[in-house]
C-alpha cells in the first residue's frame, strides 16, 4: 500500500514538475501544474511520517504561495505576445540540458548513500505536537527571527509593489 502510494505521488510530483517547466502556452498552466506538484509532495511527506510538514505544505504552498502566483498572473493580465517570452537559443538549451543532467547524476550518486533501513520512530514523530514543542522550546529564537523576517518581507513587498519607484 505504502509502496503503491509512493510511486503514485512520485510520478505525480515529477510529472507535474515537468509540466511547470514545459508548458509553453501560458504561465497559468505552469501555476496549476505547480499546485499538483506541491500536493503530491505533501503526500510524500506524510509517507515519511512528517504529518506536520505535509500539512504546512498544503496550507502554505498549495494554499497561499500558488494562489499568490495566480493573483499576480491574473493581475498582470499577460496575453498575446507578452504571455510567453521568446525562448532561449539552442546553445543555451544544450548547456542547460548538460548542466541539469550532470547535476542529477551527481546528486543521485551522492544521495544513493541513503540506503540504510529506516529506524522505528516513536508514536508522536513528526506530529504537530512534537514539532510545535521543539519549535517553542529549543528553536524559539528561530521562530522569533522567522517572524521578523516575515514582517520585513511584507514591508518590502508593499514598498516594491507601489505604483512608481521613487
Amino acid at each position, binding site marked *: 500500500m*505504502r*509502496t503503491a502510494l509512493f510511486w503514485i505521488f*512520485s510520478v505525480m*510530483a*515529477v510529472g507535474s*514538475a*515537468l509540466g*511547470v*517547466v514545459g508548458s509553453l502556452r501560458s*504561465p497559468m498552466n*505552469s501555476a496549476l501544474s*505547480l499546485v499538483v*506538484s506541491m500536493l503530491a*509532495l505533501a503526500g*510524500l*511527506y506524510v509517507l*515519511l*511520517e*512528517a504529518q506536520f*510538514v505535509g500539512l504546512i*505544505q498544503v496550507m*502554505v*504552498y498549495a494554499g*497561499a*504561495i500558488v494562489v*499568490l*502566483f495566480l493573483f499576480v*498572473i491574473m*493581475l*498582470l493580465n*499577460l496575453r498575446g505576445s*507578452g504571455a510567453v*517570452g*521568446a*525562448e*532561449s537559443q539552442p546553445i543555451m538549451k544544450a548547456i542547460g540540458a548538460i*548542466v*541539469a543532467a550532470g*547535476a*542529477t547524476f551527481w*546528486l543521485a550518486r551522492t544521495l*544513493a548513500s*541513503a*540506503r*540504510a533501513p*529506516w*529506524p522505528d*520512530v516513536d508514536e508522536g514523530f*513528526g506530529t504537530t505536537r*512534537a*514539532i510545535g514543542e*521543539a519549535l517553542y522550546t529549543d528553536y524559539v529564537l528561530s521562530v522569533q527571527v*522567522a517572524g521578523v*523576517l*516575515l514582517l520585513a*518581507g511584507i514591508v518590502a*513587498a508593499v*514598498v*516594491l*509593489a507601489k505604483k512608481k519607484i521613487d
Partner: protein
Amino acid sequence: MGDVSGFHFQIVAALIFAIGALGVLLRRNIIVMFMSIELMLNAANLSLVSFSREIGNDQGQILAFMVMVVAAVEVAVGLAIIISLVRNRDTVNIEDASQMKW
C-alpha cells in the same frame, strides 16, 4: 515500508531539483523561472524530510519548516519585484531587463 527506502525519496528529490534547474536555465519567462526556483526549494525540503526520517530525528523537519518560511517571504518580495518590472518595462521576458548584464 516494503522495498521503498530513503534512497527512492532522494532520487525523486534529485529529479525535481534537476527539473527546477532546467527551468531556470531554459525558460525566459520570469514567472516560470520563479516557479522553477520554488520547485528546487521543495526538492531540498523533500531531501531534508527524508533524511530526518532516516535518522529518526525531527530536526530535519524543523529545518524544512524554516525553509518554507523563507520561501514564503521570497515569493512575496519576488512577485512584488515582478509586478514592478511589468509596470515599468511592460514585459515578463528577462532578456528585456538586461540593464545589469555585462
